């Protein structure tokens, strides 16, 4: 009978494995949501959910057990293990839903990271392959009718997002508790946002880009507003929502124009068509400008950065850290895919605009940060400046169209991906320390509040110092590795002016990072900073910060392996 069915319905090959990180994140998100809403019936719900998953795994195992080449039985076994694990965890923490949610979410991110690593290592043309054994780049393929790309950019960004989640959870746990904003929906929302981010990084179709942007944005709007009684948080959410909706609409308009011109929403096809089409130039430019605005908003490039300081300041600090790091990584991945990947032939048109934006972003972010007193706002503007440094890579792809430009492009893409991964550690780390001090202070933290804390709390202060020194790009820390990668590819591409601007910006940025460090270590304690009383419960946060700090040091001293991986990651699916 199955033979007849197969003849009647040609079942399309549906490579679930290509989407497995998203599926893992989404599945765990649903599960966390279910368990949170289940209340007293938590254990029963967990049992039921586990049973359903186990049944599904059993069927998959039974159907594929004859096929020795298939990896499905192994995967089914792993998922079954996950189902048992969640039941065990629920049994252990059935009375402490927040802890359960945190552990489940952490496990979800860890599993997503594991799956991404598995995707990276699977060669033989199943998912990714070595395109050229000499160069050893990550292979590039697209699946689901060209909707989803499996390539270096997608995979590397998944690493960044998963790591961002894994560090954010322990760092933020106690903060959310003490501010009494630890709501059950936090962890599902975190996972849904991450789903959107990884999906955005792997979207190979503009429709998919738009859907992914909406998934992640909706989750982030709610997360920004989690502090219900805090007016700043409410303001930040509304601002983020209004401006975000506006920018999404512009992006969508751009996509519609692209479809109107080329008849396709597939990113590579669109690129080819736009480059060769005999459409009115004005229309092509309008479409590109609108997409550019959409991406610039999400990545926070000047002049589309206005939301960042307010949103970053108002949102609960752990959310800010996650948002700053992971959203940026995902949005830049899509930015890279559309502009560097597909629209490379048209770069003479868009590159000048991006260069201009990179210049004002680097300078604007740094200069505006100097005049701030709120630590979160300083870090927000520093995030803007760092987006500018990453943007250098966008235009370091082609030295005048000469021979070997592809390699330079790959170098630049790899450098950007590396920067975003490293920025994840620095950003979540620095916002994490802020959240640690902030929950002790119970108000937003100004530079003066930090006075003398280096003496009172040496460990978090030293960690903060390390993150700031790394953000400033001092060698021996990961921040230098990141900057070095981007500067190197830019010099190789002949973008001396941009790197010169980056130097000026780095020096200005060095000033305000030093201001924070000086407050902690140089100044003596003030009345306000003495109010920051130790309230305990810092172990999990310190573990998270410790991991981030260790990563910053290791990636600063011995970055070789990761650099190699990033260099392989500069590939796009066609």
């Amino acid at each position, binding site marked *: 009978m199955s033979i007849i069915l197969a003849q009647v319905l040609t079942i399309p090959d549906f490579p679930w494995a290509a989407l497995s990180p998203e599926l893992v994140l989404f599945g765990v998100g649903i599960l966390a949501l279910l368990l949170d809403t289940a209340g007293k019936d938590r254990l029963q719900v967990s049992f039921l959910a586990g049973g359903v998953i186990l049944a599904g795994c059993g069927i998959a195992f039974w159907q594929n057990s004859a096929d020795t080449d298939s990896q499905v039985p192994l995967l089914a076994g792993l998922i079954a293990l996950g189902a048992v694990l969640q039941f065990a965890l629920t049994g252990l923490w059935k009375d402490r839903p927040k802890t359960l949610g945190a552990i489940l979410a952490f496990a979800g991110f860890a599993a997503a990271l594991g799956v991404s690593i598995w995707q990276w290592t699977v060669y033989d043309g199943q998912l990714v392959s070595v395109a050229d054994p000499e160069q050893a780049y990550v292979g590039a393929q697209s699946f689901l009718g060209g909707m989803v790309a499996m390539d270096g950019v997608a995979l590397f960004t998944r690493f960044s997002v998963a790591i961002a989640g894994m560090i954010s959870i322990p760092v933020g746990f106690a903060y959310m508790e003490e501010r009494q904003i630890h709501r059950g929906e936090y962890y599902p929302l975190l996972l849904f946002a991450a789903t959107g981010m990884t999906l955005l990084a792997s979207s190979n179709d503009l429709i998919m880009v738009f859907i992914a942007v909406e998934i992640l944005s909706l989750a982030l709007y709610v997360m920004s507003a989690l502090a219900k009684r805090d007016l700043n948080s409410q303001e930040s959410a509304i601002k983020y929502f209004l401006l975000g909706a506006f920018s999404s609409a512009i992006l969508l308009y751009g996509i519609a124009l692209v479809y109107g011109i080329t008849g396709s929403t597939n990113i590579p096809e669109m690129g080819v068509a736009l480059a060769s089409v005999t459409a009115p130039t004005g229309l092509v430019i309008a479409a590109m400008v609108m997409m550019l605005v959409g991406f610039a908003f999400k990545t926070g490039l000047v002049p589309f950065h206005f939301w960042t300081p307010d949103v970053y300041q108002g949102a609960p600090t752990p959310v800010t850290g996650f948002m700053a790091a992971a959203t940026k990584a995902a949005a830049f991945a899509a930015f890279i895919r559309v502009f560097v990947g597909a629209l490379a032939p048209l770069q003479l048109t868009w590159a000048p605009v991006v260069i201009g934006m990179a210049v004002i972003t680097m300078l604007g972010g740094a200069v505006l940060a100097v005049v701030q007193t709120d630590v979160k706002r300083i870090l927000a503007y520093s995030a803007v400046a760092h987006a500018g440094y990453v943007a250098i890579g966008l235009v370091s792809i082609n030295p005048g169209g000469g021979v070997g430009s592809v390699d330079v492009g790959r170098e630049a893409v790899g450098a950007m991906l590396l920067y975003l991964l490293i920025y994840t550690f620095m950003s979540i780390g620095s916002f994490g320390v802020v959240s640690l001090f902030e929950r002790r202070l119970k108000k937003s933290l100004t530079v003066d509040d930090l006075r003398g804390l280096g003496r009172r709390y040496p460990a978090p202060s030293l960690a903060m110092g390390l993150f700031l020194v790394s953000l400033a790009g*001092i060698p021996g820390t990961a921040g230098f590795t990141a900057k070095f990668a981007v500067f190197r590819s830019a010099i190789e591409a002949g973008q001396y002016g941009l790197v010169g601007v980056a*130097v000026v910006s780095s020096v200005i940025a060095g000033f305000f990072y030093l201001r924070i460090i000086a407050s902690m270590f140089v100044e003596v304690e003030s009345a306000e900073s003495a109010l920051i009383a130790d309230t305990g419960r810092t172990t999990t946060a310190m573990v998270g910060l410790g991991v981030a700090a260790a990563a910053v040091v290791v990636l600063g001293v011995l970055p070789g392996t990761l650099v190699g991986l990033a260099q392989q990651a500069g590939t796009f699916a066609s």
Partner: protein
Amino acid sequence: MLGDIPLLSLLIGLPAVAAVVLALIDRDDTALLRNVALLGTGVTFLATLVLFADFQTGVAGFQLTESVEWIPEWGITYKLGVDGISLLLVVLTGLIFPLVVLAAWEQRDRAKGFFTALMVLESALIGVFLGLDLILFYVFFEVMLVPMYALIGVWGGDNRRYASIKFFLYTLVGGLLMLLAILYLSVQAGGTFDYDAILALDLSRTEQIWLFWAFFVAFAVKLPLFPLHTWLPDAHTEAPTVGSVVLAAVMLKIGGYGFLRFNLPLFPEAVDLYAGPILAAGVIGVLYGALVAMVQKDLKRLVAYSSVAHLGFIAIGIFALQPIAAGGAVVQMVNHGLTTGTLFLLIGFMYDRTHDREIASYSGLMKATPIFGGLFLMATMSSIALPGLNGFVGEFPILIGTYQTTPWAAIAAAFGVILAALYLLWAYQRMFHGPVGGHAETMTDLNAREIAVVAPLLVLMLVIGLYPKPLYDRVTPSVEQVITQVDADIAAARSAAGDTTASTDSE
């Protein structure tokens, strides 16, 4: 005997290990902390002595080289080597640090951080002089900013915040410009950062000019050369004694070292073009530093400005492009380290007692504290280049050598020597002679530990002053090689330029 031991890595590693050990010690155990710090720096000093003994005299190139791949993905290697230019500076660094630890023996305020920062600083300083991969050099160059910033910022005087940030940002600007130049050089050299490979590059005149300035700013800030010197008096005045000593004795020398190691050999055509203005800046530095020093009320600030003047001499010696002058400049870097280091140490000992550095607050110290007065007099004499002491054997060759290529610079700089005698002796006269008054009435003389700290430096001043040959034997071949090569490159460039002008004329 030591064939298999990577001596240079050991030199960088020993203080770093000491820093790690210090980080693990309980922060209230001051006695253990300072003992470990002394042990770490002491062993490092012994290792630098081994290096001095192992160093083959009369060889110009790099010795004891080590090379390991570090980040092969970017063509970065961990490559170390020592030659006549860097040898003495490494030994000087090794000598200064144990003395500095002894000088800070009574450090109670956050001693753990203090000694850890010192150890990191020593490791980075030695690394700067030994690194032969441009990125490795750059890494050490920037890493040392952090502990020095901490020393000034955390343990400094009242205005420490301003001074520390100014110091950090000045050096950061120069460093980042240099990083750009290094990246450009690497791209030209096909992705390697190896010093020898980059030395072999054939750069056009325009390239040389741009890259020269990028490197020049970094080192001129460090040296510091007029008009980029303004961070130095602030940093010196606010830094704790130890910070001032390390800054003056070792850190400023990175500027001179960088000129000789990078600016001269890599960009000879640009050197030819700009040697004149740079010599002028050096001369201005010498005279301006001396004149400003004369009017200082704060003794530490006076010595800081005297550093500006002395380092102007070193810049002149290097950019005179004459082997004797350049050799003198290298030896003078060591001499300045010994002399100014001693002066800062002595001022620190005085400040510990009275918490006042105003020249006007003291009178008749010679009678009140004869040992202090005597030692201070000897360091002063060395600073004004009295024959028989070390200052003379450095400054004299600089002046003779410079006179051969650019007489005006030598003549103008010679006035600096006279002015130095004037401001130092005048300050000495006001503070040490006359009736006992001011703080001198209550001040106690130096104790045995303090005498032990400065004694080795004073002995070396005399020894070098009387018999400088061992230093020159080691320095001269390497310096001569650099200068000869630069002269040859300049001559080739000039004749090429002459050819083109000649051919265009004939057409």
